[in-house]
């Protein structure tokens, strides 16, 4: 009943103390129990006044949700791109390989990779594991007689390219492929556009890779160039070849071997404490400091340079969202406050009619709670929608970046996490309710008469 009153009241301004309102005000029979539906009806019917708080809460919550996702997106972007490209969230390799990581020491590669992968997949089912080989070598382009025409130094990467697009997506190679196609069959590889230009190669040309096998012998292997890549990083662009890992295994005599196995959390972006715990657990079982071929797992933070990036982004992200939620709470609190204050006149009237201050106060809070919940719900939904758009499409600023020489994320994307789903409720519900509670205190402070007088304003 009480709620019914309030809602009906809201449908017209308190200033217009018209007969219609009075009629509704006089409807005392509605008990609290059915208040919800009336309240809801009220919220829907209300054109000019309840709608505004809901819109404000909705917009505010939407912004909170969007900001949270966006911040996660931009902060994790640089970390995730490094993880995806080279370090993984965790990386498994031999102890000796890890010690000489910068030299891509395939003579310390892991053997029996399928067993190791199976073990990892069994022991850590919530991770995605993928094996890769990094190598160095010389690329040799033939003339029409098959003699050497040009040569260039290359960094190489063997990843799963055939029969699976997981790695292509993970490394975002789709956007880096600027000419040709991904390898469709064995013996095809991608090289960088810059290298192709230097060596005067085009898509479809045959090249020979000269490298060292895992045992140290000279290794030679032919590739047909299926496509050209551009990374935007001079160090990579000047000489990089990407091929299917099985081709590379064959080329480097690394059957069932791999330099590294990268692990990714299947359900979340990089989580440092989780990665560290995982690595500690793995290493206590597998690492033998005496055996340089024993396996070791390195969390991303244990791989050069990333420790800082991770700590920095965790803190900065928290700080920005914290500030924003405080600010958002203040705004919504204000909304709740304003919503309460403007109705002092109405409260006066209701007190005069015989409602208790208590009932009025409670109705105010419940209404605020309703506003907050509805606003939070809609706001979260809309915010998630925009975040999803932003996650899927992102804002591409690459057009604004001329002559990019670095591998920078030029598409800003959001990232939706579990936090994104609930974060909006903090400012949305709590602040609105607190605002209404504070505003409602005035009901107790004032005399019915003075509240009633507000009606005239």
């Amino acid at each position, binding site marked *: 009943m009480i709620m019914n009153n309030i809602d009906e009241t809201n449908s017209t301004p308190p200033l217009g103390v018209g007969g219609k309102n009075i009629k509704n005000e006089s409807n005392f029979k509605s008990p609290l129990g059915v208040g919800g539906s009336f309240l809801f009806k009220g919220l829907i019917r209300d054109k000019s006044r309840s709608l505004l708080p809901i819109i404000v809460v909705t917009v505010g919550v939407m912004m909170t949700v969007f900001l949270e996702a966006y911040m996660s997106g931009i902060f994790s972007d640089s970390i995730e791109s490094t993880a995806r490209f080279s370090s993984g969230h965790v990386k498994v390799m031999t102890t*000796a390989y890890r010690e000489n990581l910068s*030299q891509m*020491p395939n*003579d*310390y*590669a892991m*053997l029996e990779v399928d067993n190791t992968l199976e073990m990892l997949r069994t022991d850590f089912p919530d991770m995605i594991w993928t094996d890769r080989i990094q190598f*160095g*070598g*010389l690329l*040799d382009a*033939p003339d029409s007689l*098959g*003699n*050497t025409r040009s*040569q260039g*130094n290359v960094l190489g990467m063997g990843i799963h390219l055939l029969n699976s697009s997981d790695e292509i997506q993970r490394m975002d190679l789709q956007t880096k492929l600027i000419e040709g196609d991904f390898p469709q069959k064995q013996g095809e590889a991608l090289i960088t556009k810059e290298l192709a230009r230097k060596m005067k190669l085009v898509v479809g040309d045959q090249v*020979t890779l*000269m*490298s*060292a*096998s*895992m*045992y*140290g*012998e*000279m290794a*030679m*292997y*032919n590739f047909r160039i299926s496509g050209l890549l551009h990374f935007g990083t001079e160090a990579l662009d000047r000489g990089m070849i990407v091929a299917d890992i099985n081709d590379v295994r064959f080329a480097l*005599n690394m059957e069932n071997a791999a330099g590294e196995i990268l692990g990714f959390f299947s359900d979340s972006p990089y989580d440092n404490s989780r990665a560290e715990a995982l690595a500690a657990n793995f290493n206590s079982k597998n690492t033998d400091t005496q055996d340089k*071929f024993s396996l070791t797992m390195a969390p991303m933070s244990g791989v050069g340079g990333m420790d800082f990036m991770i700590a920095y982004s965790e803190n900065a992200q928290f700080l920005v969202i914290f500030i924003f939620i405080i600010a958002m709470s203040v705004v919504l609190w204000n909304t709740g406050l304003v919503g309460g204050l403007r109705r002092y006149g109405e409260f006066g009237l209701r007190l005069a009619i015989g409602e208790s201050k208590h009932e009025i106060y409670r109705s105010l809070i419940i209404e605020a709670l309703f506003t907050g919940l509805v606003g939070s719900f809609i706001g979260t939904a809309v915010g998630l929608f925009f975040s999803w758009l932003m996650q899927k499409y992102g804002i591409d600023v690459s057009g604004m970046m001329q002559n990019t020489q670095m591998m920078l994320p030029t598409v800003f994307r959001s990232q939706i996490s579990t936090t994104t789903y609930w974060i909006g409720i903090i400012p949305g519900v709590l602040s609105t309710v607190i605002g209404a509670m504070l505003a409602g205190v005035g009901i107790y402070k004032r005399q019915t008469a003075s509240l009633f007088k507000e009606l005239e304003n």
Partner: protein
Amino acid sequence: MNSIKNLISLPFRGQGVLFLLLFSFTMSAQNYPSGKSILDKVDRNMSSKTRIMTSKMEIQGGRSVRTLESKSWIEGEQKAYTEYLSPAREKGTKMLKLENQLWIFSPSTDRVMQISGHMLRQSVMGSDMSYEDMMSDSPLLERYKAEVTSEEMIEDRRCWVVTLTAIKENVNYHSQKIWVDQERFVPLKMDLFAKSGKLLKRTTLGNVQKMQGRWFPMEMTYKDMLKEGKGTKMTVVSIQFDGAIPAGVFNKSNLK
């Protein structure tokens, strides 16, 4: 990486260095014989107009030792042709050296690749070995003066220590020391030094056998002294001196 060098260079280097000792000239020391005279005697053992040789090479990898078998045809010091026989992966890989040019053929790629230009000068994929190292140098005694500097025992063999010091600038090693068996005139050890006197590489030779009227070391170990590891061991399986080699062997078309 190291072993790439070994793979390519050993058949030549083992050959080349010894061969070049032929052109020595006398730099006599007081009580010792002249360097040239020692090296001349070494040459009588070690050099021949041609040689056809089958050898095995043990390459020390990170985890295991692998053995490569190859057959080489060598004429003088400008021409060498090597074909790998085993393991299966290497079978059919051929290399041809003609003067300052080096070609490699790999059957799996069906390609003949030349290692040339500034690539020759550079290290092979970051290793300490340059392609240049595989190439024939000009005669040793054109670049070094040879001097017998002392006598030393290696195992139970008494050796002359011949010290070679560069007299030209464009040499890979500023000085070398060769331990020559005083009785058999076979080198048992060779050290390569930097100008600072630091030992860079060491080759030890052993299992000296008398064959076809000459003493010849059938085993040789090559080691980069700055690196960890046991080095690479080469064993001569069979060798034929001054056999006839058809002219077509040293032809690029013979690679494919």
